[in-house]
């Protein structure tokens, strides 16, 4: 156990050191990307082709309409590609997918969720994977960053009617951040053993006289953006547990870092753009603290290995790969669920009750430590507004954050934001059991594990979908009309309702002047604020989800 503690600390320290090293240069670089007036030659060509004037900024409704149009087109294209899969090249002979699965998958990848109701190995050909899904891996991440940057501009701008230009933000996110880093990441992963070919399935005879199937595919290119864009949709069913997606312990570490770099550097971008780096540091500090606590709890739960089966086997190794071990699995699992990635290198369904519960809790926290690319930053800023409001009253001032007053309109939008996802999670789960026909289908077809664990599978599915995570208690058979539809709706609303509120808030903040900082201003860059923000995040989540957590992981884990 002591050895494990040191191994855990060493790995966490590695992550910390690298993130600290990257924080400033990457954060500053991204700030430059979004504030620079210059366009690259290739970007200018692109803007001409799509008919956008890069110099003109948009009001928040226009920005929102652009996002909605872009996402709607994306959903339609991905849906259509799946429905005509058999006529596409490199389909591996796979047929078109069902309407409800195509609906679910299209929404899933456009909303940056990457929930997979299907087993990709046997469902999707290469063309749909790279020309449909992988493209959305890039642009859905770019949309997230764009929304976050728009919100940051809301804080940074004074008396402005605009919050930036979506097309410019999306293009720059893609071409200047995601694409170059993906190329780099793909090469590193290639070196580590991730495959990149178009060979299809290869059957070989083994030395024991049997046969084995070796899969192929353009995995490295998809893997890089899957993690960098906190998407999480694997090329293979086993996702990052698959040796061709994540071959070694060090590629595992690389993958963890890929998920964390952009979300952890964005607070720096935020601080930079609002002209106070300490503000970014406070946000990053909050994220880091929450991350460290969460990963420690999950690792403790898994190393402790409570539960009948783990105790019987001697360790919680069901669903985990030998090369990663328990620590490599929990750090990945925490990272994936707390960043909105949803990739897995071990099966969360087979985690101990409390360990799996932590994965779900990470998602319930709203995925903001550090959260998805962009969505993590705007998520934590929305909670910060709630925290600032209560704390601001407590110091006797009309609450303000970064010089922007938090009035009734701002409060309404922040409240709606925190209201949206819990409502989707709880209503979706409850409906799964409340509608008699659905209930019988859910309990007889979908639920895999008996007892409370089965309930947790359903709860996890809606939690993951509404928060756009994409990981699953994968025993659940989600490829049913109910789950494909309900989870599709949850993903859609769970993505775009918050974006509407965030952009509306950005618009309302941008209009305001900035109140100067005085002694009477609540300081939002000190450890005190970090503690406060953590308190609000944990309390708001705990109060919302405590009963369902009690019914699921807690009831199971405390038996």
């Amino acid at each position, binding site marked *: 156990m002591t050895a494990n503690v040191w191994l855990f600390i060493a790995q966490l320290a590695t992550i910390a050191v690298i993130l600290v090293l990257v924080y400033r240069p990457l954060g500053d670089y991204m700030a430059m990307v979004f504030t620079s007036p210059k366009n690259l030659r290739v970007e200018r060509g692109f803007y001409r082709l799509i008919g956008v004037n890069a110099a003109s900024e948009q009001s928040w409704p226009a920005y929102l309409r652009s996002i909605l149009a872009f996402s709607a087109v994306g959903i339609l294209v991905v849906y259509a590609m799946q429905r005509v899969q058999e006529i596409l090249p490199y389909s591996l002979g796979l047929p078109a997918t069902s309407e409800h699965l195509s609906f679910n998958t299209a929404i899933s990848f456009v909303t940056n969720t990457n929930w997979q109701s299907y087993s990709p190995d046997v469902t999707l050909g290469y063309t749909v994977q790279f020309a449909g899904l992988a493209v959305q891996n890039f642009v859905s991440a770019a949309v997230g960053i764009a929304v976050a940057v728009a919100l940051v501009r809301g804080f940074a701008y004074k008396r402005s009617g605009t919050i930036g230009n979506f097309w410019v933000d999306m293009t720059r996110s893609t071409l200047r951040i995601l694409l170059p880093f993906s190329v780099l990441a793909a090469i590193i992963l290639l070196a580590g053993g991730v495959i990149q070919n178009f060979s299809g399935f290869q059957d070989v005879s083994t030395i024991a006289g049997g046969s084995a199937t070796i899969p192929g595919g353009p995995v490295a290119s998809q893997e890089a953006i899957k993690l960098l864009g906190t998407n999480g949709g694997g090329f293979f069913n086993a996702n990052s547990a698959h040796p061709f997606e994540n071959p070694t312990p060090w590629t595992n570490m690389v993958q963890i870092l890929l998920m964390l770099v952009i979300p952890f550097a964005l607070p720096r971008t935020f601080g930079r753009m609002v002209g106070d780096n300490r503000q970014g540091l406070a946000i990053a500090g909050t994220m880091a603290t929450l991350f460290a606590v969460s990963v420690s709890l999950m690792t403790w739960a898994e190393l402790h290995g409570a539960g009948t089966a783990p105790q019987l086997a001697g360790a919680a190794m069901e669903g985990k790969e030998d090369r990663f071990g328990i620590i490599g699995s929990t750090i990945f699992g925490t990272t994936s669920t707390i960043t909105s990635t949803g990739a897995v290198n071990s099966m969360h369904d087979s985690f101990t009750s409390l360990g799996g519960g932590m994965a779900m809790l990470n998602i319930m926290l709203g995925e903001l430590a550090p959260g998805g690319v962009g969505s993590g930053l705007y998520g934590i800023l929305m909670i910060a507004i709630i925290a600032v409001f*209560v704390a601001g009253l407590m110091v*006797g*001032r009309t609450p303000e954050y970064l010089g922007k007053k938090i009035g*009734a309109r701002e409060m309404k939008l922040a409240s709606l934001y925190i209201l949206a996802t819990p409502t989707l999670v709880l209503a979706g789960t409850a409906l799964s059991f409340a509608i008699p026909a659905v209930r019988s289908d859910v309990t007889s077809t979908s639920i895999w594990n008996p007892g*409370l664990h089965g309930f947790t599978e359903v709860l996890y599915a809606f939690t993951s979908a509404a928060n756009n995570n994409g990981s699953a208690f994968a025993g659940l058979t989600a490829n049913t009309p109910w789950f494909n539809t309900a989870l599709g709706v949850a993903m859609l609303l769970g993505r775009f309702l918050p974006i509407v509120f965030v952009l509306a808030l950005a618009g309302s903040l941008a209009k305001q002047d900035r109140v100067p900082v005085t002694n009477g201003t609540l300081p939002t860059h000190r450890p005190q604020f970090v503690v406060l923000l953590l308190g609000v995040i944990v309390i708001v989540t705990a109060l919302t989800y405590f009963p369902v957590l009690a019914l699921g992981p807690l009831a199971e884990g405390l038996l």
Partner: protein
Amino acid sequence: MSTTTETPRITPTPDDGTGPGQRPSTKASSSAFSFAQLVAALPGAFRKLDPRQMVRNPVMFIVEVGAALTTLIAIAEPFIGRADSAGQPLAPSFTVGIAIWLWITVLFANLAESVAEGRGKAQAQSLRATRTSTLARRVIQYSQTDASAEATAIEEVSSADLTLGDVVVVVAGEVIPGDGDIIFGIASVDESAITGESAPVVREFGGDRSAVTGGTRVLSDRVVIRITSKPGETFVDRMIRLVEGASRQKTPNEIALNILLASLSIVFLVVVLTLNPMASYAGGVNSIPVLIALLVCLIPTTIGALLSAIGIAGMDRLVQHNVLAMSGRAVEAAGDVTTLLLDKTGTITYGNRRATEFVTVGGATLTQLVSVARLSSLSDPTPEGSSVVTLAEQMGHTEESVAGAVIVPFTAQTRMSGLDLPDGSQLRKGAGSSVASWVGSVSPALLAELTSVETRISQSGGTPLVVATRDSTGKARVLGVIHLKDVVKEGLRERFADLRAMGIRTVMITGDNPLTAKAIAAEAGVDDFLAEATPEDKMELIKKEQAGGNLVAMTGDGTNDAPALAQADVGVAMNTGTSAAKEAGNMVDLDSDPTKLIDIVRIGKQLLITRGSLTTFSIANDVAKYFAIIPAMFAGVFPGLAVLNIMGLHSPASAILSAIIFNALVIIALIPLALKGVKYRAVSASSVLSRNLLVYGLGGIIVPFIGIKLIDLIVSLIPGF
């Protein structure tokens, strides 16, 4: 400028947690929260149960609906049978108990509001007495040619029939029939009905003391008044509405907080509504009363119940400070103020300069100088003059005035005053240049010496007054200089330091020259000053501050202050001021004490702090309630959850009931705090937050654990629980 009298009620008492400046008498009555008050408020609390009223407070409305629903179930239970909850039988009296305590919860919330309103009612009662219809003598056709209206026809009408623009005549002994401005005459007026101040005040035509308030009484002389208010909208009417809380509108922060509370309530409503379908999967379906109990415990009832009481009490605290805020918005804005504009005279200094030093020049002896200075001031009635006499006497000079001396009064032309003695010698004191020219030829050496003394005094913020004599032979000589000093009020430095800690910048406004202004600003400890200020400069400064995002507060009384008062975010008009000023400001200080601004800021902050702290407390309470209720709800089905019962509560039924009882009792326990306001210290925002987070955040988590456990110990004695 207003004349300020330091009365006991505005003596700062900085260590008083409820804010300085409260009258001792009202303090006693305000902080005491008596049983009698509760009883008096009870009927009002019951009246407020009307759902049409309750719906304005969504949180408490949910509780009321829950209470009604539980009551129906309690009534129906004997007939339809009692539903088990999650497989556990609950005590027969459980539903009844929950129903009763839910009603008590609603009642307590109403009680809080009722008590808060009750405090204003008494004040309103006495104000109403002044409003009783009096007879007004209206001038039928007032004309400027007969300004005193002595020759014009007069009719007698009821004061209620007076309209805007009417002109009335009021003589000694009569009650002024409505708000207005004196357009002719001078009178002493007893305004005690409004201000509580028994000393009469002088009101006269012209200048900044022309406004009179309906309901006050003229004690002497006769005045002609032009009515400036519409019937039913007089100052007293507005005051009554304010203290009664009838015209209370939700303030911006209150609206924002309500949104937060409503959305928290919605979240918990969703939590509770979705619980049974989910729990049904494992056979843990709970009965409706249990779910209602859970919901009521989770929604922020504590702050929901006390929110309006806090608002009313905040306005009430201002009224106790003799300040009338025209809207709650203004009170909140006061908490946000970042720049305070303070007039030097009357606010920062006593408003009259005092002699502090005699400086001889040209070889004159000190005795000569002091003696002459004293004699020349003996008949000078101004405060400056008497201060010279006082200082001279302190130095041992008590010469009698010379009989037959002729007083030479100060005029704007001569800028000197003094005495012509019977022997032909003349004594003069006055501004340096005037005295110098009166003396005639002054040697360059003496002039240089004089100038250097004058400069030194000016730079220290004082005013030099040159003293000279001319003997009977006509030979004149300069004796020296009197140092007149603007005396800064005691204790202000500390209060400005407090303000600085609170993040508020103070700016002194003065008509003095920049040199003098700078010296006084330094002495008083203000952050900035505006010298040689005209009303236009003042307006300019406010606009500049506001453009920088600052919220500005100021006081004013004159008509020329009106635009600035209107422009400022918090404009406090002095009650002695003109009606134009009172109309323009959003607060009126009945004591006409400019330093009151500081108290107003504190009250504004205290109001917000109380709301924020109780919100935090309310939400933090939920943690303990969960630990009481969740194991109680599900431990029957999932025995493992019993470990969450860390309080070791007796039984599921007693745990749930105890949580509900605690929830109700905490409301009543916090009413005094809601009315009195959370303690506020003038320190930085950061330390205020730390302290309040510790007390109301951490305290809010811990207190209910103890409270629920104690209540459970008692509830468990009830048979069946």
